[in-house]
């Protein structure tokens, strides 16, 4: 029994219905395969999909675990139905066909589809997929109205009193009101499509997809987040949205040229624009009157509805034998114009503005500068590629890529009401010195990329390849980025040797370097704060030698080695190794660049932020046919992702900001060891087949911390995080007759996780935040399945 609460609904199975289903189950013909899991290798048995077949059966799970059933739907202890069908029929000798499929029909995560058409003429299809993500079954909350958009506090709740160590000091007052509310999301996808060949060489297809999501997710709801007075609660918000997509494509083809013309429209509608909750915290210093418990409310905006259009054209022309020119142009438009929420739900409203309830004495004198954003981002893309195999021993590809991300969103000055508890400044004006006045920023970028890639056969079946890529991204002056441009130069070489059908090997090395313009921390500061503020405080409060890793200079080395050996007819061994190291650096971390207003000695010798990254993946993978009818595979993969970072623990005094004695470091190292083993046997007469598959996955996160002398007492180590999975599947199929087969499955899965962010943390464990108390998942699941399958040959 894991930590997950098992008091969840059970999927009841009517025994009579199950018996009838089995009795009717002429259909169904799956080969023995692991349950509800993709194959891990090529050459999986496809008989389930080959013929007309229907499979019906029953399964049973011993475990209630949201984590086990996160996507497969077996989240509860008890029975479930097994239902799969695959029907493929040609309707005559004129090429017409009717196909239908349904997978996992007895589970909440299921797929169903049908397609009718005439090959070479037309087609129509429809599909309906359902996916439930079971996320948390043991989350605890004190509010009423869970699952809705307005959460209130229960009668009798006295509030979390002001003072330090809240909520921990109020545990006794909070705990009686806690109750479980499951966090899960349903996604229903409806698909409709069709197409036809309307002239020789021409065809048109139109596809529609609608995603409906329903359920709830967790979000941090904060009350007062400035001046060191944050209070927050993790709450569920109502998820109820729809995404609709239509894509129409016209294609043309001839022997020497092809073209695609497409239009893609995507519309996102969110039925729930905000989450409102009653503030459980008693008023604290810095909050406006009555904004705390029990008159104050908090409100945050949820994701705004938006839409997207894209027009694209791609053409390709075979200039001559073995030479091809390809070009793509696309223009995309993102639009968002949802009505703004008012600055705060707590009144009184600004003059002429909407009435807000319930009233508090919060001061909100400034009106919104506009009622909605009118957000607009246009993307223009041009891609040209030339490829040739015109010479015997040489191939060459050249590619130019242009992508303009043009943010046309209007900017304005917005007054800031922190967490529905802090007063606005009296005047919203760019000359005012207030960190509560902020300009929104429309960031635009232009990317130019050029690649050339060629190989030469230096010896028979030995290729030497070289490649170079230049990438330049410019960030417009008014954008929030800290650099005006970055430039990448990537250069690499690869040697590939094909000794024979039995042995191939590849060795590749590449070096990527990013440089760029002066790194200006004040650039973003100037872009978003008022002139009054930046004149009064010309230097932002971030440590000026901080470098954002996605903009910083770096040197990156990458090595790849691949080998494939078939030492004997029945054995194949693949080896693959990927490794990289990236070192982030300057520019100018040892001295001032454009931050001339900062004291020179504020700059440490090394840049802060991410300083290094490492990654590796090593795999040995083998397949083995020990005897006729037998197949086996095994693999082991080691993966590494690690980053090192340097930081400085500071307050807003220059003394701390220049003190290297306040530096600290963190080295995050994530490793995975994954082992897979599989074996299958099928005798010559194919009367039955049996198999087993085992997967072990052990993922560990290590957090190495270091701190300089001023940070005493030194920090305690952070425990490792771990996720360890054992998954064993046994499967068998017995062919009762030519058309009827019985299928048996047993699946055992053991999962153990350790996560310091959740383990042993109750809802009241944290200062300032009311948590949910859910624990990292553990489970031991035994799944049994028996089904009968009918195949119509």
């Amino acid at each position, binding site marked *: 029994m894991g930590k997950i609460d098992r008091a969840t609904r059970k999927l009841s199975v009517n025994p009579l219905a199950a018996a009838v289903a089995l009795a009717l189950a002429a259909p169904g013909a799956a080969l023995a395969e692991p349950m509800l*899991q993709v*194959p*891990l290798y090529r*050459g*999986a048995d*496809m008989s389930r999909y080959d013929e007309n077949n229907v499979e019906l059966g029953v399964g049973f799970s011993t475990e209630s675990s949201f984590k086990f059933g996160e*996507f497969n739907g077996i989240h509860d202890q008890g029975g479930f139905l097994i*239902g799969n*069908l695959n029907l*493929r029929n*040609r309707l005559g*000798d004129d090429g017409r066909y009717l196909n239908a499929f349904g997978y996992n029909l007895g589970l909440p995560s299921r797929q*169903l589809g*049908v397609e009718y058409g005439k090959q070479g003429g037309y087609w129509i299809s429809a599909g309906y997929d*359902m996916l439930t*993500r079971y996320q948390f079954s043991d989350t605890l909350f004190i509010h009423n109205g869970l699952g809705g958009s307005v959460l209130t506090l229960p009668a009798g709740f006295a509030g979390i009193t002001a003072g330090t160590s809240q909520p921990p000091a109020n545990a006794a007052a909070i705990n009686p009101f806690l109750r479980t509310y499951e966090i899960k999301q349903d996604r229903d996808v409806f698909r409709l499509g069709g197409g036809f060949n309307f002239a020789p060489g021409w065809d048109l297809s139109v596809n529609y997809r609608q995603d409906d999501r329903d359920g709830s997710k967790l979000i*941090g709801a904060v009350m007062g987040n400035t001046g060191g007075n944050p209070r*927050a609660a993790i709450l569920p918000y109502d998820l109820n949205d729809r*995404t609709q*997509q239509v894509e129409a494509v016209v294609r043309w083809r001839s022997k020497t040229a*092809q073209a695609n013309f497409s239009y893609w429209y*995507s519309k996102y509608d*969110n039925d729930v624009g905000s989450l409102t909750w009653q503030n459980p915290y008693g008023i604290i210093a810095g909050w406006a009157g009555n904004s705390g418990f029990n008159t104050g409310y908090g409100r945050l905006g949820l*994701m*705004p509805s938006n839409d997207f259009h894209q027009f694209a054209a791609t053409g390709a022309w075979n200039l001559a034998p073995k030479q091809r020119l*390809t070009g793509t142009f696309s223009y995309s438009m993102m*639009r968002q114009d949802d009505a703004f*929420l*008012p600055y705060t739900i707590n009144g009184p409203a600004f003059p002429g503005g909407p009435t807000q309830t319930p009233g508090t004495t919060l001061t909100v004198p400034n009106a919104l500068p506009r009622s909605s954003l009118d957000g607009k981002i246009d*993307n223009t*893309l041009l891609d040209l590629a030339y490829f040739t*195999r015109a010479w015997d021993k040489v*191939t060459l590809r050249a590619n130019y890529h242009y992508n303009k991300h043009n*943010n046309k969103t209007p900017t304005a000055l917005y007054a800031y009401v922190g967490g529905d508890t802090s007063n606005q400044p009296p005047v919203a004006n760019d000359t005012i010195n207030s960190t509560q006045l902020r300009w*929104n*920023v429309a960031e635009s970028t232009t990317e130019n990329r050029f690649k050339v890639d060629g190989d030469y056969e230096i010896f028979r079946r030995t290729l030497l*390849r070289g490649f170079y890529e230049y990438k330049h991204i410019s960030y417009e002056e008014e954008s929030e980025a800290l650099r005006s441009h970055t430039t990448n130069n990537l250069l690499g070489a690869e040697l590939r040797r094909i000794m024979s*059908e039995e042995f191939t090997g590849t060795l590749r090395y590449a070096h990527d370097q990013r440089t760029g313009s002066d790194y200006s921390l004040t650039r973003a500061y100037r872009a978003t704060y008022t002139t009054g503020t930046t004149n009064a405080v010309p230097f932002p409060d971030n440590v000026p030698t*901080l470098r954002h890793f*996605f903009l910083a200079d770096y040197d990156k080395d990458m090595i790849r080695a691949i080998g494939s050996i078939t030492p004997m007819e029945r054995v194949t061994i693949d080896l693959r190794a990927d490794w990289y190291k990236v070192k982030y650096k300057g520019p100018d971390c040892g001295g001032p660049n454009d931050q001339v207003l900062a004291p020179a000695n504020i700059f440490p010798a090394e840049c802060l*932020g991410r300083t290094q990254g490492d990654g590796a993946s090593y*795999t040995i993978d083998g397949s083995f046919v020990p005897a006729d009818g037998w197949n086996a595979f095994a693999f082991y*993969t080691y993966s590494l992702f690690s980053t090192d*970072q340097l*930081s400085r623990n*500071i*307050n807003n005094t220059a003394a701390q*900001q220049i003190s290297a004695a306040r530096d600290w470091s963190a080295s*995050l190292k*994530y490793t995975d060891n994954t082992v897979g083993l599989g074996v299958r046997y099928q005798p010559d007469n194919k009367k039955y087949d049996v198999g087993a598959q085992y997967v072990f996955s052990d993922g560990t996160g290590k*957090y190495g911390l270091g701190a300089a002398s001023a940070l005493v007492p030194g920090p*305690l180590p952070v425990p490792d995080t771990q996720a360890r999975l054992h998954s064993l599947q046994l499967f068998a199929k017995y062919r009762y007759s030519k058309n009827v087969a019985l299928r048996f499955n047993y699946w055992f899965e053991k999962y153990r996780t350790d*996560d310091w962010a959740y*383990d042993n*943390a*109750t809802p009241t*464990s944290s*200062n300032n*935040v009311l948590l*949910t108390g859910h624990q990292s998942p553990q489970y031991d699941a035994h799944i049994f399945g028996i089904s009968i399958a009918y195949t119509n040959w």
Partner: protein
Amino acid sequence: MKQLKLTAAVLAGLALAFVAFAARAQAPAEKEAAAGKRGDLVLRGDAKCTRCHDEEDSPQVLQIGKTRHGVNADQRTPTCVSCHGESDRHINKPADAKERPKPDRIFKRNNDVTPPEAQSEACLGCHEASARIHWQGSAHDRGRVTCANCHTVHAPRDQVLVKETQAGVCFTCHKEQRAAIFRFSSHPLKSGWMACSDCHAPHGSVAEHNLVRNTVNETCYQCHADKRGPFLWEHPPAREDCTLCHNPHGSNVPQMLQARPPYLCQQCHVAPFHPSTNYSGTNLPPIRPGVTAPGFDKMLGQQCMNCHSKVHGSNHPSGARFTR
């Protein structure tokens, strides 16, 4: 509601089964008709091949009759020689040859007869349009991957074209991604609800990493359109590239994050007070005796997102700090 959906799904499935079986029962077997008219076993003009490669000799080869390449009614349907060449020497073995020469074009990996580009040419003759328009010079093409390395043309169902089985083909080379699906947090690929091709275009595209859309974010917005905005308050890395913070193939950090907050966030945020504080194991629960002021609100739960919950962007007028 769940029971209703379940019942509806089963009933719909059975209805589809009935319709399809009924339709099939009324339809003449096209394969038999075609064979009867032309004397070919599977395809038009294949008799010179099926003379030897009959059901006794090559049942797997003849499975092509069950595929779209076996539909004679479609005038575009190829013959055996369309793909394998006339193969005269293979059909009429020269007297001095010890072994029968192979057909003119064969599709086995790294074979001596047909180089990779010639293998793919056989397919591109008909299939170069649509999604394959970018194939020549694409990453897979340059890596000497051929169509037949992934597609099984003679099989009734091609493993790579079935969503529930596709990943197994991709894992042949993309071995780290195979391991990644077993990590703590991943997309629903392990259970077959998603496929690699939902995000990647294996035949090439204009995007990096062979993505199906022009950029990483555009690809993610297909299913996560709520993150698209534009927002009043944009978080620059979220607008630039989702993978700066997320690993879409799987991660042992919740929410498929590349690394664990608060440290991930602190790689870009070093400001006075809590953004620059060196959080550690101090005061992680269970609380030790004598500790009176737990201070781990940035280490527990959603960590930095306990307050800054709108890191993908905020449209609230007071959302400049991504809290609203």
